[in-house]
């Protein structure tokens, strides 16, 4: 199979427009934060941030159950202090 011809100029323009859209979103989101009370924006923000770690925990739990899961986790998270993580080899004891 051969890769098709690619119009790099068009692709770069698309990439730039995409990024500008992202920046517009950042703008609107910051406006939303500025307008809201700390209680309101931080409550939603905390939920969002904490959910990322919940997802990470679920991912690590799943990975730890796979074959060589502990080794994959050590590699993925660049854990060099393997002695410090005996529970990684016992998934039910591990906390993220």
């Amino acid at each position, binding site marked *: 199979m051969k890769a098709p011809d690619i119009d790099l100029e068009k692709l770069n323009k698309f990439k730039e427009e995409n*990024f500008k859209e*992202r*920046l517009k979103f*950042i*703008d609107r*989101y*910051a*406006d939303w*934060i*500025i*307008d*809201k*009370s*700390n*209680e309101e*924006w*931080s*409550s939603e*923000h*905390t939920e*969002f*941030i*904490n959910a*990322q*770690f919940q997802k*990470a925990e679920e991912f*690590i739990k799943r990975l730890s159950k796979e074959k060589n899961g502990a080794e994959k986790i050590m590699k993925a*998270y*660049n*854990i*060099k*202090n393997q*002695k*410090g*993580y005996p*529970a990684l080899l016992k998934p039910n*004891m*591990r*906390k*993220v």
Partner: protein
Amino acid sequence: MEIKFLNKEISMKKEINILDRLAIDFVSILDKSKVEYVFVSGYVCILFGRSRASEDIDLIIERLSFTQFRKLWGNIYNDFICINSSDIKEAYNEYLSKNIALRFARKGGFVPNIKLKFPKIDLDHFTLKEKIKVVLNDNVIFISPLELQIAFKLYLGSEKDIEDAKHLYKIFKDKINLELLYDFNRKLKIVEVFDKYLR
């Protein structure tokens, strides 16, 4: 958003998330150990509401002798663990002294974690010297000057970094020293990037 920003001090009350809790708990150890520090990079943006995830919090601490570091390591190890190494000499000689960050997480865990390093470049020293005090609820933490943070993110230049800069600028443009920001922009040669994405 209610923020008080006066004379290098920001006061803000908000709901604390997992990253904030990690930052607060870790600096209580640095305070106890009398070690100067400053938070830099992504966490500074997330602290003020940027909606993106980060698995680590970047922290610059003052350069310590091995004896000073041993004391700090002992205090850290009450509640945290070093992800890179279990050996204090290796941690100091092969990581910190070679400007490689050490990563610390709560015992048994590895995300999120603190990426701790010594100051390496002139701007790191500037950041430590000119840090901003943040009173977060009843806790005190120190962060990088926002003018430098915004300019440096633009200098780094990835989409994520420019988005971080945009968020901070939008939140603080009426409160920061714009002359200082423009001076950083000139010196980091990012005036065009600033005009293109942040104006």
